[in-house]
Each structure stands twice: as structure tokens, then as C-alpha cells.
């Protein structure tokens, strides 16, 4: 019985970490249709901001939940103003530009922090479920993911900003005609997406050893989750994260971690073959025209 409880936590944790990894990309790619290949680097920037802040004596939770998202959001705004805003609607060009950005950030982080592994330890001690020990920090990740999904749902569904943002993403011409400054809204949305990536990188940082190239490990999973989720931002994120998280953990636990990774990719291929538009319907929605 204890093992089942432990496994349940691990399953929930796997789903939650996929939600976190993918949330920023879901906004930037799912809503704004910017193929952000620098998504992984936005995440590790969040991690490095956290580590720096903690080393400067800031409380680790404040560093993770407040400082890192804000800092990465700022970086996101700069990136949007300098690069991304020229490229809206040009899917392939955003890919190339953000790939360049990802190389730039890797170089920058290497120059500042050196090409070595850095990290902080987890702030929550482990505890026992029956005979098993479990990482207490897993619960924090699950909690953050749940709060994040709830906050996104509330903002997108019930606030005026959410409404305007969704409207702008769907039909920027109509939104502009109604008197909204679409430029500003794009910028704000990109900043929110960046903040989410930064948050993800920050809360995952205590679990891993960060090197400047760590972002690469996240980017594939993030894209698979977002694409398989389909056009419904929240429902898609939750459904595909759940599906892939469960598949990955099931095979990791019963066979081996290698098979777990393979199973995730095979599941993604099969899923997209059967549901080419993602779990929640049409995969590609034309933004304008």
C-alpha cells in the first residue's frame, strides 16, 4: 500500500513538472504562435537567478516564486522589444531568431557562471510514507503547478486582461479596430510567458545540477506537451501533461528510465498520428486572415 501511495505522488509530481515546464511555452507558442526555441534557456535563467539570489542571502521561496519570474519577465520584455516583435506571424523566422537567442543565453550564462554545475539544495526535508522515504519537495512542485493552473484559468477566463489577450491572439486586426494597443498586449503576453518559464526553471533548480546547456533537456518535452495538448491552452496543457507524465512514470518504474523516455516519445508519435490537431481539437489555428 505504501508503494502505491509513493507511486501516486511520483505520478502527480511527473504531471506537475510537465505542466510547469510547458506552461510558459503554452502561452508563447500556443497563444502567440512564436516558436520559442529559447524556452529552455528562459527556464535555466530562472534557475540561475534563483541560485544567485539564494547565495546572496535571499529566502529561497521568495527567490523562486517572486524574484526569478520577475527577472525573467524583464528579460522577456527586452527580447520581445528587440527581436520577437518584428517577427509575429512569421513562424519559421521566430524559430531561427530564438535559436540564435538560445545560443546567446547559453554563452552569456557560461561567461557569468562558468561552464560548471551549480545548484542549491532542496529547502524541504524528505519524509516517510510507511516504509518509504519520499522527497518532500515533490509536494511543493505539485502545489505550485496546481496554483499556476488555477491562476491561469482565473486570469484568462475572468479578467479583462485575459479576455483582451485572448481576443488579440485570435484576431489582432479586430482587437486593434476596437482600440486596443495590440503591440502592448503582445509584449505583456510574452512577458507573462517568460515569467512562467522563469518560475518553472526556478522551482526545478533545487532538484537538479544546472549547467549552461541544461535548457536542452526541457525543450523537447515542453514542445511535445504543448503540441499534443492542442489549441485549448489549459485543458490541453493538463490533458497532455497527465497523459505523458503517466506514460513516462509507468515505464520508468516498471522497466527502466531509458524505456520511460522512449515510451514518452512513442506515445507522442502515436498520439499525434491519431489526433493530428492535439488532444483538444484543431492543432493549428490561423491567426489572421
Amino acid at each position, binding site marked *: 500500500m505504501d*508503494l502505491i501511495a509513493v507511486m501516486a505522488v511520483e505520478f502527480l509530481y511527473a504531471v506537475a513538472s510537465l505542466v510547469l515546464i510547458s506552461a510558459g511555452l503554452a502561452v508563447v507558442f500556443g497563444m502567440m504562435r512564436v516558436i520559442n526555441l529559447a524556452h529552455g534557456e528562459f527556464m535555466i535563467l530562472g534557475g540561475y537567478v534563483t541560485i544567485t539570489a539564494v547565495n546572496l542571502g535571499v529566502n529561497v521561496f521568495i527567490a523562486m516564486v517572486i524574484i526569478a519570474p520577475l527577472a525573467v519577465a524583464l528579460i522577456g520584455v527586452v527580447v520581445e522589444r528587440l527581436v520577437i516583435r518584428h517577427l509575429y506571424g512569421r513562424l519559421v523566422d521566430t524559430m531561427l531568431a530564438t535559436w540564435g537567442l538560445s545560443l546567446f543565453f547559453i554563452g552569456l550564462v557560461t561567461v557569468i557562471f562558468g561552464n560548471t554545475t*551549480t545548484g542549491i539544495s532542496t529547502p524541504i526535508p524528505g519524509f516517510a510514507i510507511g516504509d518509504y*522515504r519520499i522527497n518532500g519537495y515533490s509536494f511543493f512542485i505539485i502545489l505550485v503547478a496546481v496554483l499556476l493552473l488555477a491562476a491561469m484559468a482565473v486570469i484568462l477566463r475572468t479578467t479583462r486582461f485575459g479576455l483582451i489577450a485572448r481576443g488579440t491572439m485570435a484576431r489582432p486586426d479586430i482587437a486593434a479596430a476596437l482600440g486596443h494597443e495590440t503591440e502592448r498586449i503582445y509584449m505583456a503576453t510574452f512577458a507573462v510567458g517568460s515569467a512562467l518559464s522563469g518560475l518553472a526553471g526556478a522551482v526545478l533548480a533545487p532538484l537538479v*545540477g544546472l549547467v549552461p546547456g*541544461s535548457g536542452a533537456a526541457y525543450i523537447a518535452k515542453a514542445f511535445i506537451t504543448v503540441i499534443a495538448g492542442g489549441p485549448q491552452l489549459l485543458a490541453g496543457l493538463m490533458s497532455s501533461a497527465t497523459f505523458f507524465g503517466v506514460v513516462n512514470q509507468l515505464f520508468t518504474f516498471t522497466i527502466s528510465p*531509458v524505456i520511460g523516455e522512449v515510451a514518452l516519445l512513442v506515445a507522442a508519435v502515436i498520439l499525434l498520428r491519431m489526433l493530428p490537431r492535439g488532444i483538444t481539437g484543431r492543432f493549428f489555428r490561423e491567426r489572421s486572415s
Partner: protein
Amino acid sequence: MIMNRRHFIAAAGAAATLFPIAGRASDTIRLGSVLDTSGIFDAYGKPMDMALGLAVNEINAAGGLNGKEVEVVSYDTQSDMALYSQYAQQLVRNDDVDVVHGGILSASREAIRQTLRKAGILYFYNVLYEGGVCDRNIFINGVTPAQQVEALVPFAMGRSGKKVHVLAADYNYGQITAKWIQKYVADNGGETVAVDFFPLEVSEFGSTIARIQSIDPDLVIAPLVGGAHLSFFRQWAAAGMNERIPLASTSLGVGNEHRVLTADEGNGIMVAYHYSQELDTPANNDFKARWAQAYGDTSAIHEIAVSNYQGVLTWAAAVRRAGSTNRDDVIAALEEGLSIEGPGGTVTIDPQTHHAKLDVHLMILENQGMTVIETLPQRPPVDTQAVCDLGANPDDNTQYEIRI
């Protein structure tokens, strides 16, 4: 091709740079070095380069070798395997070096080994690696899996129990090492209850940690490699497992990874290497003092930096003994079973394999350092000895895959 004057001059210039050393005076000894001092492996390469610089400066300050100054020709391979073969060609053709030290990954060693062998330039590979290289032109002074695992397994089992779970990196180093672990676990009367392999980019170990608990071994041995795998040690401690099941590793700490973990995360992990900064011997204390004088502080020193330092020292001792830098004379001097005292202990050349007999220290991580519990003097490289005999077969030129 029509050749105008500009083309001609360009071509002549290129030709001139290709053969610039035709008239080099032989009043210096040239030592070639190829290391990744930038790029993703620079955490290994930079300290190795510093160690080589320190060794050569010390040799020169003491009057050089046989009255000649040692001059270093070094190339940064930028963690790019293609650059290794390019720079090896350059060292062979242009730079006219007497010896080459360098290479970090096994792939980089194999990229330059044949070039140097054909050119008849002696090659020192000073890195802990998977074993099995059998080539008269190369000398290797890093520990091989048998040297290390043979010592680590009984030590770790003695402090835990007989049921061992192995978690290894999924490439040749991890797979070969995992086999050696299984062999020595069986030899010591234990049982390997599970072996799991992890691709290098895996950084999620939650379900693995649950799986380990459901198998409930007495000991976990983890030849895990790289930044992503460092997460395992972190998550292991975060789950409180570090107080439950003893953990040993064959790779943690080679690049000073144990300084990235906090003291609580690392404490108690058992390792076995040739070097530890915490070795309290006159040779090591003296080495650290000289390093600090040259580079400010000693934090960069790690296992393979010391190996590189000792590689240069070994070569220098052989050149002194041979009285020349002629390759065959130097090899003959080394094959006499030449021995030096380095910061990590005694290094003795094993003539049969051109590997080294090394002191292996059994250690436990303690407050981000490696505390030496026991030193096993002069462990022979039994894995490579089982497949390689350069005395009987001097023309051998193979990297054997060691079957267990």
C-alpha cells in the same frame, strides 16, 4: 587554374606557413598539449592545462631537462572532437614536438592516437578512463575501472551489506564500469539485485528512488556522469535516503562535482580515486602550496588535473633517465618500471600495458571534501593486463573491449 601574381603570393605564403620550422634550432624540448580549455568540457580541461603549465614551469625553473628548456605548444580543442585530429596533424607536421600530452574524452584520445603513432611521437593520455588501450606509443596514468572498482566494492560492501543496486550512465564508461561492479560484487560474495542505466540528459530520479526502495538493496553504487545526473545525488538526499541506504560512486568528484553538492547532500558517499585534495601527505601539501602560489587558490585542483601533472613528471623523469628525447630511448626508460612520487602518491609504469600502478585511496565525502579512510598502495591495472601484453606483442594497436 590561371595564376596571377596575387594568387602566387597567397599560395607561397600558405606554403611558407605550412613548413615554417625547417630550420628550428634544437636547443629546446617541445611539449605539445591538446586539451579542451573552452566549451562544455572546460571544467576538466582548464585545471588540466593549469597543472601542465605548473609542471613545465617547475621543470624549467630547475634547469630544464638535460640542460634544455621545455617549451609548450598548446592548442585549445574547444570541446570539439574534429579539432583534435586537426591540431594533432599540426603538432606532427608543423610544430615538430617531442611529446604530446592531452585528450580528455576517450573519443578525443582515439581521434589523435593513430596520428601520433604513425608520426612516431610519444603520447601521454593522463585521464581516468574505461581501460583496454594497448599501444606501445601511448602511456596512460589514469585509474581504470578495475583499479578503482576492485578497491571500492569491498570497501563499500563492508560498510553496508551484500545486496547491491547499480545505477549507471548509459554509454561505454557506465556500461563497462557496471560490468566490473557486478564482477567484484560477486567476487566478494554479494549479489547485484538490479542494474539501471540512465541516458546522460535524465535529471528526474523520483520514480527511480521509489523503485530502489521497493527493491531495498543494502548498497547503491552509482557511476553516473554529468550535470543532469548530479540531480540524482540531490534528490536522493532530498528524500532522506542518504540516511537509509549507503551510496558509493565511481565518478562523483572527478571534476570536483562534490563541491556543488551541499555538505548534507554529499556526506557519507563512498568513493575511490587516486587523488583527493584532502590527502594529508607532504607531497600533496607541497603541491597545493605551489599551485596556490601560481594560481591564487587551490579550488580548481581535481583528479585528472593531478593526473596531467603526474604525466608530465613521469615523462620528464624518463627523459632524464634516457638522456635524450628520442622516442625509443624514452620508452625504454619508462619500461624499466619507472616510478615517480606525485601529489596523489606513487605512480609506477606497468611495462606490460603502458598503464600505471597507482595508489588508490578509499574515501568518504565529508563537508564537501574527500576524507581518506584507507590507502591501497600500487594497484595494478588488472583489466588491461588481462588483454594487453606489449612485451610479447609490441606491435599491438587496439583498444580491447574487456569481457568479464
